[in-house]
Protein backbone atom coordinates (compact mmCIF):
# COMPACT_ATOMS: atom_id res chain seq x y z
CA UNK A 1 0.00 0.00 0.00
CA UNK A 2 2.81 2.31 0.99
CA UNK A 3 4.66 1.52 -2.22
CA UNK A 4 1.54 2.17 -4.24
CA UNK A 5 1.13 5.58 -2.61
CA UNK A 6 4.79 6.41 -3.25
CA UNK A 7 4.41 5.43 -6.90
CA UNK A 8 1.25 7.50 -7.23
CA UNK A 9 3.13 10.35 -5.60
CA UNK A 10 5.91 10.07 -8.13
CA UNK A 11 3.48 10.12 -11.01
CA UNK A 12 1.57 13.09 -9.57
CA UNK A 13 4.82 15.02 -9.39
CA UNK A 14 5.61 14.03 -12.95
CA UNK A 15 2.19 15.19 -14.14
CA UNK A 16 2.61 18.57 -12.48
CA UNK A 17 5.71 19.09 -14.55
CA UNK A 18 8.21 18.94 -11.70
CA UNK A 19 9.94 15.80 -12.94
CA UNK A 20 12.82 15.89 -15.36
CA UNK A 21 13.44 12.92 -17.59
CA UNK A 22 16.20 11.06 -19.34
CA UNK A 23 15.72 8.17 -21.75
CA UNK A 24 18.17 5.87 -23.52
CA UNK A 25 17.95 2.60 -25.39
CA UNK A 26 19.96 -0.12 -23.61
CA UNK A 27 18.57 -3.62 -24.26
CA UNK A 28 19.31 -6.34 -21.70
CA UNK A 29 21.66 -8.71 -23.47
CA UNK A 30 23.23 -11.41 -21.25
CA UNK A 31 25.73 -9.99 -18.76
CA UNK A 32 24.75 -6.37 -19.34
CA UNK A 33 24.76 -4.25 -16.22
CA UNK A 34 23.40 -0.93 -15.04
CA UNK A 35 25.22 0.68 -12.15
CA UNK A 36 23.75 3.43 -9.98
CA UNK A 37 26.17 5.28 -7.76
CA UNK A 38 25.26 7.64 -4.92
CA UNK A 39 21.83 8.54 -6.28
CA UNK A 40 20.16 10.73 -3.73
CA UNK A 41 16.98 10.54 -1.68
CA UNK A 42 14.45 7.85 -2.39
CA UNK A 43 15.24 5.69 -5.42
CA UNK A 44 12.70 3.37 -6.95
CA UNK A 45 13.76 1.00 -9.74
CA UNK A 46 11.11 -0.85 -11.74
CA UNK A 47 11.93 -3.67 -14.12
CA UNK A 48 9.88 -4.03 -17.28
CA UNK A 49 9.94 -6.02 -20.50
CA UNK A 50 11.32 -3.20 -22.60
CA UNK A 51 14.66 -2.08 -23.98
CA UNK A 52 14.98 1.49 -22.74
CA UNK A 53 16.26 3.02 -19.55
CA UNK A 54 13.98 5.80 -18.38
CA UNK A 55 14.97 8.03 -15.48
CA UNK A 56 12.75 10.60 -13.84
CA UNK A 57 14.19 13.02 -11.36
CA UNK A 58 12.03 14.71 -8.76
CA UNK A 59 13.98 17.66 -7.39
CA UNK A 60 14.04 18.07 -3.64
CA UNK A 61 12.54 21.29 -2.33
CA UNK A 62 10.95 21.99 -5.72
CA UNK A 63 14.27 23.09 -7.16
CA UNK A 64 14.44 22.10 -10.76
CA UNK A 65 17.82 21.40 -12.33
CA UNK A 66 18.81 24.19 -14.68
CA UNK A 67 19.18 22.79 -18.16
CA UNK A 68 20.17 24.62 -21.28
CA UNK A 69 18.60 24.46 -24.70
CA UNK A 70 22.00 24.16 -26.31
CA UNK A 71 23.85 20.84 -25.99
CA UNK A 72 26.07 22.11 -23.19
CA UNK A 73 26.30 20.01 -20.04
CA UNK A 74 25.99 21.50 -16.60
CA UNK A 75 29.10 21.08 -14.48
CA UNK A 76 28.99 20.51 -10.72
CA UNK A 77 31.74 20.02 -8.17
CA UNK A 78 31.21 16.24 -8.30
CA UNK A 79 31.22 16.05 -12.07
CA UNK A 80 29.34 16.82 -15.26
CA UNK A 81 25.61 16.30 -15.62
CA UNK A 82 25.43 14.83 -19.12
CA UNK A 83 21.89 13.48 -18.69
CA UNK A 84 19.94 16.52 -17.55
CA UNK A 85 18.77 14.68 -14.42
CA UNK A 86 21.78 15.36 -12.21
CA UNK A 87 23.71 12.27 -13.23
CA UNK A 88 26.96 11.60 -15.05
CA UNK A 89 26.52 8.74 -17.48
CA UNK A 90 29.23 6.45 -18.77
CA UNK A 91 28.46 3.69 -21.22
CA UNK A 92 30.23 0.86 -22.93
CA UNK A 93 28.94 -2.30 -24.56
CA UNK A 94 28.60 -4.25 -21.29
CA UNK A 95 27.80 -1.62 -18.69
CA UNK A 96 26.08 1.69 -18.28
CA UNK A 97 26.65 3.68 -15.11
CA UNK A 98 24.90 6.71 -13.64
CA UNK A 99 26.74 8.63 -10.96
CA UNK A 100 25.17 11.41 -8.98
CA UNK A 101 26.86 14.78 -9.47
CA UNK A 102 24.37 17.00 -7.65
CA UNK A 103 25.33 18.55 -4.31
CA UNK A 104 23.38 17.31 -1.30
CA UNK A 105 21.46 20.60 -1.23
CA UNK A 106 19.92 19.76 -4.61
CA UNK A 107 19.30 16.06 -3.96
CA UNK A 108 15.94 14.71 -5.02
CA UNK A 109 14.23 11.41 -5.67
CA UNK A 110 14.56 9.13 -8.68
CA UNK A 111 12.24 6.78 -10.47
CA UNK A 112 13.88 4.43 -12.97
CA UNK A 113 12.30 2.01 -15.42
CA UNK A 114 14.87 -0.41 -16.74
CA UNK A 115 14.86 -3.66 -18.75
CA UNK A 116 14.00 -6.38 -16.24
CA UNK A 117 16.81 -8.72 -17.24
CA UNK A 118 19.64 -6.24 -16.74
CA UNK A 119 22.03 -6.86 -13.87
CA UNK A 120 21.54 -4.03 -11.40
CA UNK A 121 24.25 -2.69 -9.17
CA UNK A 122 23.46 0.02 -6.59
CA UNK A 123 26.20 1.59 -4.50
CA UNK A 124 25.79 4.48 -2.13
CA UNK A 125 27.44 6.01 0.89
CA UNK A 126 25.42 6.99 3.94
CA UNK A 127 24.94 10.60 2.82
CA UNK A 128 23.04 9.99 -0.38
CA UNK A 129 20.61 7.14 -0.92
CA UNK A 130 18.09 7.17 1.92
CA UNK A 131 15.74 4.48 0.75
CA UNK A 132 15.89 1.98 -2.09
CA UNK A 133 12.92 0.21 -3.61
CA UNK A 134 13.38 -2.35 -6.40
CA UNK A 135 10.46 -4.07 -8.13
CA UNK A 136 10.06 -6.78 -10.77
CA UNK A 137 13.70 -7.38 -11.62
CA UNK A 138 14.77 -10.71 -13.12
CA UNK A 139 18.47 -9.92 -13.34
CA UNK A 140 20.98 -10.24 -10.50
CA UNK A 141 21.06 -7.46 -7.91
CA UNK A 142 24.26 -6.28 -6.26
CA UNK A 143 23.61 -3.67 -3.59
CA UNK A 144 25.91 -1.90 -1.13
CA UNK A 145 24.12 0.87 0.65
CA UNK A 146 23.68 2.33 4.11
CA UNK A 147 19.92 2.50 4.67
CA UNK A 148 16.69 0.58 4.19
CA UNK A 149 15.91 -1.43 1.12
CA UNK A 150 12.81 -3.15 -0.19
CA UNK A 151 12.93 -5.63 -3.05
CA UNK A 152 9.80 -7.18 -4.54
CA UNK A 153 9.29 -9.96 -7.09
CA UNK A 154 12.99 -10.63 -7.57
CA UNK A 155 14.12 -13.68 -9.55
CA UNK A 156 17.88 -13.40 -9.82
CA UNK A 157 20.75 -13.53 -7.37
CA UNK A 158 20.77 -10.96 -4.58
CA UNK A 159 23.97 -9.81 -2.95
CA UNK A 160 23.13 -7.09 -0.48
CA UNK A 161 24.98 -5.31 2.28
CA UNK A 162 23.58 -2.48 4.31
CA UNK A 163 24.37 -0.92 7.64
CA UNK A 164 21.13 0.33 9.09
CA UNK A 165 17.50 0.20 8.11
CA UNK A 166 15.12 -2.59 7.39
CA UNK A 167 15.81 -5.09 4.62
CA UNK A 168 12.68 -6.59 3.13
CA UNK A 169 13.19 -8.96 0.19
CA UNK A 170 10.42 -10.90 -1.52
CA UNK A 171 11.51 -13.46 -4.05
CA UNK A 172 9.18 -14.58 -6.79
CA UNK A 173 11.60 -17.35 -7.66
CA UNK A 174 14.61 -18.84 -5.89
CA UNK A 175 16.98 -20.55 -8.28
CA UNK A 176 19.89 -22.89 -7.78
CA UNK A 177 23.03 -21.08 -8.88
CA UNK A 178 21.53 -17.71 -7.96
CA UNK A 179 22.59 -17.11 -4.35
CA UNK A 180 20.79 -14.81 -1.97
CA UNK A 181 23.29 -13.25 0.41
CA UNK A 182 22.19 -10.45 2.73
CA UNK A 183 24.14 -8.67 5.44
CA UNK A 184 22.60 -5.97 7.60
CA UNK A 185 24.54 -4.72 10.57
CA UNK A 186 21.72 -3.35 12.65
CA UNK A 187 18.51 -3.61 10.65
CA UNK A 188 16.09 -6.50 10.58
CA UNK A 189 16.23 -8.79 7.57
CA UNK A 190 13.05 -10.31 6.18
CA UNK A 191 13.34 -12.73 3.30
CA UNK A 192 10.14 -14.08 1.82
CA UNK A 193 10.50 -17.04 -0.53
CA UNK A 194 8.11 -19.44 -2.29
CA UNK A 195 6.90 -22.24 0.02
CA UNK A 196 8.16 -25.05 -2.21
CA UNK A 197 11.82 -24.06 -2.40
CA UNK A 198 14.82 -26.29 -1.73
CA UNK A 199 17.74 -24.37 -0.29
CA UNK A 200 20.98 -24.60 1.66
CA UNK A 201 20.74 -22.20 4.52
CA UNK A 202 23.16 -20.23 6.67
CA UNK A 203 21.74 -17.51 8.85
CA UNK A 204 22.46 -15.90 12.14
CA UNK A 205 22.46 -12.78 14.24
CA UNK A 206 24.96 -12.09 16.97
CA UNK A 207 22.60 -10.11 19.17
CA UNK A 208 19.25 -10.62 17.45
CA UNK A 209 16.91 -13.54 17.07
CA UNK A 210 16.22 -15.76 14.08
CA UNK A 211 12.74 -16.79 12.97
CA UNK A 212 11.93 -19.26 10.26
CA UNK A 213 8.68 -20.53 8.72
CA UNK A 214 10.39 -23.55 7.22
CA UNK A 215 11.51 -26.74 8.95
CA UNK A 216 15.29 -26.54 8.81
CA UNK A 217 16.93 -29.93 8.37
CA UNK A 218 20.54 -30.65 9.30
CA UNK A 219 22.87 -29.91 6.41
CA UNK A 220 25.14 -32.45 4.76
CA UNK A 221 28.14 -30.76 6.27
CA UNK A 222 28.60 -31.89 9.87
CA UNK A 223 31.47 -29.53 10.63
CA UNK A 224 29.44 -26.39 10.20
CA UNK A 225 30.06 -22.98 11.60
CA UNK A 226 28.77 -22.79 15.12
CA UNK A 227 28.25 -19.90 17.47
CA UNK A 228 25.60 -17.69 18.96
CA UNK A 229 22.38 -17.79 16.97
CA UNK A 230 24.06 -19.41 13.99
CA UNK A 231 21.81 -21.72 12.04
CA UNK A 232 23.03 -23.98 9.31
CA UNK A 233 20.95 -26.51 7.46
CA UNK A 234 18.75 -27.05 4.48
CA UNK A 235 15.19 -26.60 3.40
CA UNK A 236 13.86 -29.62 1.55
CA UNK A 237 16.57 -31.32 -0.46
CA UNK A 238 18.77 -28.22 -0.53
CA UNK A 239 20.13 -26.46 -3.59
CA UNK A 240 19.74 -22.70 -3.74
CA UNK A 241 22.06 -20.78 -1.46
CA UNK A 242 20.68 -18.47 1.24
CA UNK A 243 23.06 -16.53 3.50
CA UNK A 244 21.51 -14.08 5.99
CA UNK A 245 23.61 -12.39 8.65
CA UNK A 246 23.09 -9.52 11.04
CA UNK A 247 24.93 -8.14 13.98
CA UNK A 248 22.02 -6.93 16.06
CA UNK A 249 18.97 -7.14 13.80
CA UNK A 250 16.37 -9.87 13.78
CA UNK A 251 16.12 -12.29 10.90
CA UNK A 252 12.90 -13.60 9.42
CA UNK A 253 12.76 -16.27 6.76
CA UNK A 254 9.17 -16.70 5.72
CA UNK A 255 6.98 -18.37 3.14
CA UNK A 256 5.25 -16.26 0.56
CA UNK A 257 1.50 -16.55 0.47
CA UNK A 258 0.00 -18.10 -2.65
Amino acid at each position, binding site marked *: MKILLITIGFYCLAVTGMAQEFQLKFPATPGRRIKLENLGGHVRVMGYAGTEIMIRFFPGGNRKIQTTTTPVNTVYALGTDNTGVGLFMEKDTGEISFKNVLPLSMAGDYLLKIPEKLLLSVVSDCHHLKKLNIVDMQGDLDIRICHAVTIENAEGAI*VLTTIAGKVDVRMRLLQKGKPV*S*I*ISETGNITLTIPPDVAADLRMGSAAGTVHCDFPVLPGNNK*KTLQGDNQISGRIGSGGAVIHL*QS*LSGRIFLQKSKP
Partner: protein
Amino acid sequence: MNCEETMAAIIDAREKGEAVLSTEADLHLAGCAACQKEAAELRHLLAEMDNTVFKPAPAALGKGFYDMLSAEMLSADNPVKISRRYAYLSAAACIIFLAGIGFATLLINRNTNKVAAERVTVNNGGEKENLLLTHIQDPSSAMRIQAVNEVESLSQPDPKLVTVLIQVLNKDSNSNVRMAAVYALSKFADDTRVRNGLIGALEKETEPVIQVLLINLLADKKEERVTHALQTIIQNPATRRQVQEIAGNKLRAL
Protein backbone atom coordinates in the same frame (compact mmCIF):
# COMPACT_ATOMS: atom_id res chain seq x y z
CA MET B 1 64.04 -53.31 -82.60
CA ASN B 2 64.00 -52.18 -79.00
CA CYS B 3 65.26 -53.69 -75.72
CA GLU B 4 62.05 -55.56 -74.93
CA GLU B 5 62.00 -57.21 -78.34
CA THR B 6 65.71 -58.07 -78.02
CA MET B 7 65.09 -59.76 -74.60
CA ALA B 8 62.20 -61.68 -76.12
CA ALA B 9 64.52 -62.75 -78.99
CA ILE B 10 67.09 -64.04 -76.46
CA ILE B 11 64.43 -66.16 -74.67
CA ASP B 12 63.10 -67.49 -78.01
CA ALA B 13 66.59 -68.47 -79.12
CA ARG B 14 67.15 -70.38 -75.86
CA GLU B 15 63.86 -72.25 -76.12
CA LYS B 16 64.66 -73.19 -79.76
CA GLY B 17 68.18 -74.22 -78.78
CA GLU B 18 69.74 -71.68 -81.13
CA ALA B 19 73.11 -70.30 -80.04
CA VAL B 20 72.98 -67.23 -82.32
CA LEU B 21 70.50 -64.35 -82.23
CA SER B 22 68.87 -62.78 -85.22
CA THR B 23 70.77 -60.04 -87.07
CA GLU B 24 68.42 -57.29 -85.91
CA ALA B 25 68.77 -58.32 -82.27
CA ASP B 26 72.53 -58.50 -82.62
CA LEU B 27 72.65 -55.04 -84.19
CA HIS B 28 70.55 -53.55 -81.39
CA LEU B 29 72.62 -55.19 -78.69
CA ALA B 30 75.83 -53.92 -80.25
CA GLY B 31 74.60 -50.30 -80.15
CA CYS B 32 72.72 -50.26 -76.79
CA ALA B 33 74.72 -50.38 -73.56
CA ALA B 34 71.62 -50.61 -71.38
CA CYS B 35 70.34 -53.51 -73.41
CA GLN B 36 73.68 -55.28 -73.16
CA LYS B 37 73.54 -55.07 -69.35
CA GLU B 38 69.96 -56.31 -69.30
CA ALA B 39 70.83 -59.16 -71.73
CA ALA B 40 73.73 -60.24 -69.51
CA GLU B 41 71.44 -60.41 -66.44
CA LEU B 42 68.84 -62.37 -68.41
CA ARG B 43 71.38 -64.87 -69.65
CA HIS B 44 72.72 -65.35 -66.14
CA LEU B 45 69.18 -66.04 -64.90
CA LEU B 46 68.53 -68.50 -67.70
CA ALA B 47 71.80 -70.29 -66.97
CA GLU B 48 70.80 -70.62 -63.29
CA MET B 49 67.47 -72.13 -64.33
CA ASP B 50 69.26 -74.61 -66.53
CA ASN B 51 71.38 -75.73 -63.58
CA THR B 52 68.38 -76.38 -61.31
CA VAL B 53 67.96 -80.09 -60.42
CA PHE B 54 64.35 -81.32 -59.99
CA LYS B 55 64.02 -84.18 -57.46
CA PRO B 56 61.13 -86.65 -57.98
CA ALA B 57 58.48 -86.83 -55.20
CA PRO B 58 58.44 -90.03 -53.09
CA ALA B 59 55.95 -92.61 -54.26
CA ALA B 60 54.32 -92.77 -50.78
CA LEU B 61 53.34 -89.09 -51.03
CA GLY B 62 51.38 -89.66 -54.18
CA LYS B 63 49.68 -92.74 -52.75
CA GLY B 64 48.73 -90.93 -49.55
CA PHE B 65 47.21 -88.09 -51.55
CA TYR B 66 45.06 -90.39 -53.66
CA ASP B 67 43.93 -92.42 -50.59
CA MET B 68 42.82 -89.20 -48.88
CA LEU B 69 40.98 -88.06 -52.00
CA SER B 70 39.12 -91.41 -52.22
CA ALA B 71 38.08 -91.20 -48.53
CA GLU B 72 36.68 -87.69 -49.03
CA MET B 73 34.71 -88.76 -52.08
CA LEU B 74 33.28 -91.73 -50.11
CA SER B 75 32.21 -89.54 -47.13
CA ALA B 76 30.44 -87.13 -49.48
CA ASP B 77 28.36 -90.05 -50.80
CA ASN B 78 27.57 -91.35 -47.20
CA PRO B 79 27.04 -88.38 -44.76
CA VAL B 80 27.90 -88.98 -41.06
CA LYS B 81 24.85 -89.58 -38.82
CA ILE B 82 24.87 -87.43 -35.66
CA SER B 83 23.34 -89.14 -32.67
CA ARG B 84 20.57 -87.34 -30.65
CA ARG B 85 22.68 -87.39 -27.51
CA TYR B 86 25.56 -85.78 -29.39
CA ALA B 87 23.19 -83.07 -30.71
CA TYR B 88 21.91 -82.27 -27.20
CA LEU B 89 25.41 -82.06 -25.86
CA SER B 90 26.41 -79.72 -28.69
CA ALA B 91 23.37 -77.50 -28.07
CA ALA B 92 24.10 -77.36 -24.33
CA ALA B 93 27.71 -76.50 -25.03
CA CYS B 94 26.61 -73.70 -27.35
CA ILE B 95 24.20 -72.33 -24.74
CA ILE B 96 26.89 -72.41 -22.05
CA PHE B 97 29.33 -70.77 -24.42
CA LEU B 98 26.90 -67.98 -25.35
CA ALA B 99 25.90 -67.48 -21.71
CA GLY B 100 29.58 -67.19 -20.84
CA ILE B 101 30.06 -64.51 -23.49
CA GLY B 102 27.02 -62.63 -22.17
CA PHE B 103 28.20 -62.82 -18.56
CA ALA B 104 31.68 -61.68 -19.50
CA THR B 105 30.23 -58.77 -21.48
CA LEU B 106 28.09 -57.81 -18.48
CA LEU B 107 31.08 -57.86 -16.16
CA ILE B 108 33.18 -55.83 -18.58
CA ASN B 109 30.38 -53.27 -19.01
CA ARG B 110 29.87 -53.03 -15.26
CA ASN B 111 33.56 -52.39 -14.71
CA THR B 112 33.63 -49.94 -17.60
CA ASN B 113 30.65 -48.08 -16.14
CA LYS B 114 32.27 -48.06 -12.71
CA VAL B 115 35.49 -46.70 -14.15
CA ALA B 116 33.50 -44.17 -16.19
CA ALA B 117 31.52 -43.14 -13.09
CA GLU B 118 34.73 -42.72 -11.13
CA ARG B 119 36.17 -40.72 -13.99
CA VAL B 120 33.05 -38.52 -14.03
CA THR B 121 33.35 -38.02 -10.27
CA VAL B 122 36.98 -37.06 -10.60
CA ASN B 123 36.13 -34.77 -13.49
CA ASN B 124 33.32 -33.19 -11.48
CA GLY B 125 35.77 -32.52 -8.69
CA GLY B 126 38.15 -31.01 -11.20
CA GLU B 127 35.34 -29.02 -12.77
CA LYS B 128 34.37 -27.59 -9.41
CA GLU B 129 37.93 -26.57 -8.71
CA ASN B 130 38.21 -25.05 -12.16
CA LEU B 131 34.89 -23.31 -11.63
CA LEU B 132 36.13 -21.64 -8.46
CA LEU B 133 39.48 -20.70 -9.90
CA THR B 134 37.83 -19.26 -13.01
CA HIS B 135 34.91 -17.50 -11.38
CA ILE B 136 36.78 -16.13 -8.40
CA GLN B 137 37.91 -13.23 -10.58
CA ASP B 138 34.43 -12.69 -12.01
CA PRO B 139 33.19 -9.11 -11.67
CA SER B 140 29.82 -10.45 -10.48
CA SER B 141 29.81 -10.96 -6.72
CA ALA B 142 26.93 -13.45 -7.09
CA MET B 143 29.12 -15.58 -9.33
CA ARG B 144 31.98 -15.40 -6.84
CA ILE B 145 29.69 -16.46 -3.98
CA GLN B 146 28.38 -19.36 -6.03
CA ALA B 147 31.94 -20.46 -6.84
CA VAL B 148 33.05 -20.25 -3.21
CA ASN B 149 29.96 -22.13 -2.12
CA GLU B 150 30.81 -24.99 -4.47
CA VAL B 151 33.92 -25.73 -2.41
CA GLU B 152 31.82 -26.81 0.54
CA SER B 153 30.63 -29.81 -1.41
CA LEU B 154 34.20 -31.02 -1.94
CA SER B 155 35.36 -33.51 0.68
CA GLN B 156 39.08 -33.00 0.02
CA PRO B 157 39.70 -29.79 -1.89
CA ASP B 158 42.95 -29.19 -3.68
CA PRO B 159 45.47 -27.27 -1.49
CA LYS B 160 45.62 -24.67 -4.25
CA LEU B 161 41.88 -24.20 -3.86
CA VAL B 162 42.17 -23.69 -0.10
CA THR B 163 44.88 -21.08 -0.71
CA VAL B 164 42.58 -19.28 -3.14
CA LEU B 165 39.76 -19.33 -0.58
CA ILE B 166 42.01 -17.82 2.07
CA GLN B 167 43.00 -15.13 -0.44
CA VAL B 168 39.32 -14.44 -1.09
CA LEU B 169 38.71 -14.12 2.64
CA ASN B 170 41.57 -11.64 2.93
CA LYS B 171 41.22 -9.64 -0.26
CA ASP B 172 37.76 -9.72 -1.82
CA SER B 173 36.20 -6.28 -1.75
CA ASN B 174 32.67 -7.62 -1.26
CA SER B 175 31.78 -8.58 2.30
CA ASN B 176 29.13 -11.10 1.15
CA VAL B 177 31.81 -12.98 -0.78
CA ARG B 178 34.13 -12.93 2.23
CA MET B 179 31.26 -14.23 4.36
CA ALA B 180 30.76 -17.12 1.92
CA ALA B 181 34.50 -17.83 2.19
CA VAL B 182 34.23 -18.04 6.01
CA TYR B 183 31.36 -20.52 5.65
CA ALA B 184 33.31 -22.63 3.17
CA LEU B 185 36.55 -22.57 5.16
CA SER B 186 34.74 -23.43 8.39
CA LYS B 187 34.38 -26.96 7.02
CA PHE B 188 38.16 -27.31 6.82
CA ALA B 189 39.00 -25.34 9.98
CA ASP B 190 40.88 -28.28 11.53
CA ASP B 191 43.52 -27.92 8.83
CA THR B 192 46.50 -25.93 10.16
CA ARG B 193 46.85 -23.86 7.00
CA VAL B 194 43.17 -22.94 7.07
CA ARG B 195 43.35 -22.14 10.78
CA ASN B 196 46.30 -19.80 10.15
CA GLY B 197 44.40 -18.16 7.30
CA LEU B 198 41.37 -17.58 9.52
CA ILE B 199 43.49 -15.99 12.27
CA GLY B 200 45.20 -13.75 9.71
CA ALA B 201 41.82 -12.73 8.29
CA LEU B 202 40.44 -11.82 11.72
CA GLU B 203 43.37 -9.48 12.28
CA LYS B 204 42.53 -7.61 9.05
CA GLU B 205 38.74 -7.82 8.89
CA THR B 206 36.73 -4.67 9.60
CA GLU B 207 33.21 -5.78 8.63
CA PRO B 208 31.48 -6.40 11.98
CA VAL B 209 29.35 -9.34 10.82
CA ILE B 210 32.37 -11.20 9.46
CA GLN B 211 34.44 -10.34 12.53
CA VAL B 212 31.80 -12.07 14.64
CA LEU B 213 31.71 -15.13 12.39
CA LEU B 214 35.48 -15.49 12.59
CA ILE B 215 35.57 -14.94 16.36
CA ASN B 216 32.89 -17.59 16.90
CA LEU B 217 34.58 -20.06 14.59
CA LEU B 218 38.05 -19.73 16.11
CA ALA B 219 36.79 -19.63 19.69
CA ASP B 220 34.76 -22.80 19.12
CA LYS B 221 37.95 -24.47 17.91
CA LYS B 222 39.66 -23.40 21.18
CA GLU B 223 42.29 -21.65 19.12
CA GLU B 224 44.50 -19.86 21.66
CA ARG B 225 46.53 -18.04 19.02
CA VAL B 226 43.50 -15.82 18.41
CA THR B 227 44.05 -14.04 21.73
CA HIS B 228 46.13 -11.26 20.22
CA ALA B 229 43.56 -10.55 17.50
CA LEU B 230 40.75 -10.47 20.07
CA GLN B 231 42.64 -8.02 22.24
CA THR B 232 43.27 -5.79 19.22
CA ILE B 233 39.55 -5.84 18.37
CA ILE B 234 38.60 -4.98 21.96
CA GLN B 235 41.04 -2.09 22.13
CA ASN B 236 40.19 -0.66 18.69
CA PRO B 237 37.81 2.30 19.18
CA ALA B 238 36.51 1.88 15.61
CA THR B 239 35.17 -1.61 16.35
CA ARG B 240 31.42 -1.93 16.90
CA ARG B 241 30.43 -2.27 20.56
CA GLN B 242 28.65 -5.60 20.00
CA VAL B 243 31.76 -7.06 18.36
CA GLN B 244 33.91 -5.88 21.27
CA GLU B 245 31.53 -7.53 23.73
CA ILE B 246 31.56 -10.82 21.86
CA ALA B 247 35.37 -10.70 21.57
CA GLY B 248 35.64 -10.04 25.31
CA ASN B 249 33.34 -12.95 26.16
CA LYS B 250 35.24 -15.36 23.93
CA LEU B 251 38.58 -14.17 25.24
CA ARG B 252 37.52 -14.93 28.78
CA ALA B 253 36.27 -18.35 27.76
CA LEU B 254 39.54 -19.32 26.06
